[in-house]
């Protein structure tokens, strides 16, 4: 009798051989011989000689006695939160991002609104206070089960609408008294002045400031509309904070967008040594792929980056002090800790399930544009009808939200048979194409996702071999 093929993924790291059992959600370290046999079998069993085939069948039977190597798949793709979606939308909205303006005083090369990406472009439109007020009321009405909520001000450059931001903060503090409020702002920091900083300090506003590296690198991409670089203006503003509002510095985070053909070492040295920035928390992103200028990493960049990653791994294994590690790669540790957290052993895949990836649209971080339309987050294409999930006047469009939540349904067979089911990172934004949810567009990202997950698994296994426990950061 033919045995069903196990639902597994094989990968190797140098001379170590591993099998990820999808049903058990567990990585097994196996012998080379077993790995090679299974590799042949999983690729094409028909060409195998019968003695090898018998050996493989025996291996599979033995593993199945131990509870591994099941061939079970999820039977129905449906998100586990689907059945109570309406209740999440009713009382679990965690935050709102308010697009207070579509104007910006900079013209950054890689901006998603620069016209090089599939999205809206810069405009003079601004949000009126009536709309902002309604959005805050909307948040109040839909966050009963949340002990705290966030209000983020977004743009364009939100500081162009500082008066509106003040009105919003004061209205929220009054109308949402009793709820713990967290205010955030994403800014290019060129318009900061003492009045603004003082106000933000008094109202505990957290600010995410964009700086891409030392002056020559930052000013390549982040320029005023006049063409002049913005670096010096930002540094002067940060210096003002440090000299006149030193306590406020802890409310700052720097967001850096790294271009792969920049100098890694120069950016690293800047964030490690520059007085204005070295003590501010750093958030790192890489330039979004999919723009008209396809960005490729230089060999030097890759070499320097990989060197720092190796040092990070040594540090996690306790063989190098953390102070020698680049700030740029320190965030990567979280990704690996997340893998460890997600590798919780299971008995088997559930009958009904959905690939990990989508958040609950409208609940985690809904983005509200100047007209009051609601989108799942600020990263989706605002000009796409398919991403519009309602508005602050009529409420959520639950049918549309359900479609975005259950995005795996459009590629059901592929998802059911994908070994990265539990680690997928794709959401509906990956399928957004010409105002439709396009399976082909979504599936075009699948190989990259699987490569990424496999690389995480390899790093995880390598670190486990080095003796890393992934629990050292727990404070007890």
């Amino acid at each position, binding site marked *: 009798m033919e045995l069903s093929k196990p639902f597994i993924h094989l990968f190797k790291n140098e001379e170590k051989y591993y099998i990820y059992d999808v049903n058990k959600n567990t990585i097994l370290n196996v012998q080379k011989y077993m790995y090679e046999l299974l590799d042949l079998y999983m690729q094409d069993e028909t060409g195998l000689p019968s003695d090898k085939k018998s050996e493989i069948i025996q291996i599979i039977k033995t593993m199945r006695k131990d509870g591994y190597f099941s061939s079970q798949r999820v039977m129905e793709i449906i998100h586990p939160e689907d*059945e*109570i979606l309406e*209740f*999440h939308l*009713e*009382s*679990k909205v965690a935050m709102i991002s308010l697009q207070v303006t579509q104007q910006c005083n900079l013209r950054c090369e890689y901006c998603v609104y620069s016209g090089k990406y599939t999205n809206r472009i810069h405009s003079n439109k601004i949000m009126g206070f009536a709309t902002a007020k309604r959005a805050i009321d909307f948040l*109040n*009405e*839909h*966050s*009963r*089960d949340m*002990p705290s909520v966030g209000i983020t001000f977004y743009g364009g450059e939100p500081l162009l609408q500082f008066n509106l931001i003040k009105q919003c903060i004061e209205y929220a503090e*009054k*109308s*949402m*008294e*009793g*709820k*713990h*409020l967290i205010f955030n702002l994403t800014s290019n920091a060129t318009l900061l002045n003492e009045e603004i900083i003082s106000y933000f300090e008094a109202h505990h506003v957290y600010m995410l400031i964009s700086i891409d590296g030392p002056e020559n690198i930052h000013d390549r991409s982040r320029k005023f509309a006049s063409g002049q670089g913005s670096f010096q203006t930002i540094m002067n503003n940060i210096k003002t904070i440090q000299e006149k509002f030193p306590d406020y510095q802890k409310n700052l985070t720097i967001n850096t967008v790294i271009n792969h053909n920049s100098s890694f070492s120069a950016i690293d040295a800047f964030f490690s040594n520059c007085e204005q920035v070295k003590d501010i928390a750093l958030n790192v992103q890489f330039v979004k792929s999919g723009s008209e200028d396809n960005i490729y990493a230089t060999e030097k960049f890759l070499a320097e980056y990989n060197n720092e990653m190796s040092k990070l791994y040594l540090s996690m294994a306790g063989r190098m002090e953390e102070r020698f590690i680049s700030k740029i790669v320190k965030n990567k540790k979280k990704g690996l800790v997340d893998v460890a957290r997600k590798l919780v052993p299971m008995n088997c895949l559930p009958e009904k399930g959905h690939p990990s990836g989508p958040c609950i649209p409208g609940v985690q971080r809904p983005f509200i544009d100047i007209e009051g339309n609601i989108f799942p987050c600020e990263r989706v294409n605002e000009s796409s009808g398919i991403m519009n999930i309602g508005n602050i006047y009529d409420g959520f469009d639950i049918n549309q939200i359900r479609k975005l939540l259950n995005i795996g349904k459009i590629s059901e067979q592929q998802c059911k048979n994908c070994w990265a089911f539990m680690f997928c990172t794709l959401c509906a934004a990956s399928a957004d194409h010409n105002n439709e949810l396009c399976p082909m567009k979504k599936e075009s990202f699948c190989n990259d996702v699987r490569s990424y997950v496999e690389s995480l698994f390899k790093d995880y296994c390598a670190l486990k071999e080095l003796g890393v426990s992934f629990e050292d950061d*727990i404070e007890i």
Partner: protein
Amino acid sequence: MSIKKQICVYPFDAQFSPVLRYKELLADLNIVSVVSPPGWGLAGKNAGIADGGGSLDYIVSSDFDAHLERCDSVLYVESINQIDFQSILLPRINRAIDAKKNILCMIPLGEESVAMIQNRCAQSSLLFKNYNKDNDFDYNHGKKAYGRFYINTPVIFVAGLSERAQKFHIQLSLRNNFMKLGYKVSMVGSRKYCEMLGFHSFPEFMFKRDQYESNKVILFNHFIKRIEIDEKPDVMIIGLPGGIDGQNHSARNDFGILSIEIAAAVKPDALVMSLQYNDYSLGYFKQLSDLCKQKFGINIDCFNIANIRTNYENAGLFVHQDYTTLHADFIDRWKYKFKKSDIPLFNMFNTDDAVKMTNCLVNKLSRKNDLGYEIV
């Protein structure tokens, strides 16, 4: 007959909802209004929305000062939502005293605050009543008891698999329904202010650290026996604080330690188990009943499915519990698929189910053996 105090409740949320639903148990209090901080998302809405259990006769207001005029007393209540005492509660206590209103308090207060409020009320000849205080059993503290009494009256345990599983609502419903049937009910509730509802709060000594755990078992047994002797009830209902499930690594339910102690102190004759919502299978209920047989010596007689769901993915080791409130009719629709099974499933927000649960327990407790004899 004393005149009922006209009370405004503040700050109202789902924690007070069971009391509001069974307000007839408040012998000398008449609730005229319920007020919440504006940020709790309840203002202008029917009060029933707080616990998702169906409409109530109150619309929640956020205007505390306007409602001061309609009452003679303010009842400050515990809430699920956290509220800052200094910046929000205390100013409203002071404003109520300034407006010559009695102060009734269910929230835990520090000694300094109690003294301040007491003084201010005394100066204005106002009543200050603090319901949230240790109501320790008056036992001979120094004497170490060795034995447990046999409790002759039928005892019903109301337990929750986890916290926030509607236990208090069930306790009030059962008390109400048993009393309507003419039974005399003695009850020990799972909260601290139960005396205002006409029954006993869970004794504080069970939470104290100056007692051996084994001694707590004896003391609780004596506590229950004292009530049995003094009140001579037809039935006793004991609400078990916390949750009984110690298996879930990411949810703290006191690991079921208290329920083990209570079960060692008093043997239940019937067990009501309340669970938060999840898409349970039939087999799960049987497994849970078997677990309770080991813990309490008794299978589960009635399961209640609460309209709360914990989001375990977010409720980590050092993160607050993350809940979603569902509508009560969602539970009715979900449990319909078990209609043909013999699992005794109930939804306590459904008034028919509430009566059925009471009847189920009455039948269980009054069941004679096959030959019809009784112990004298």
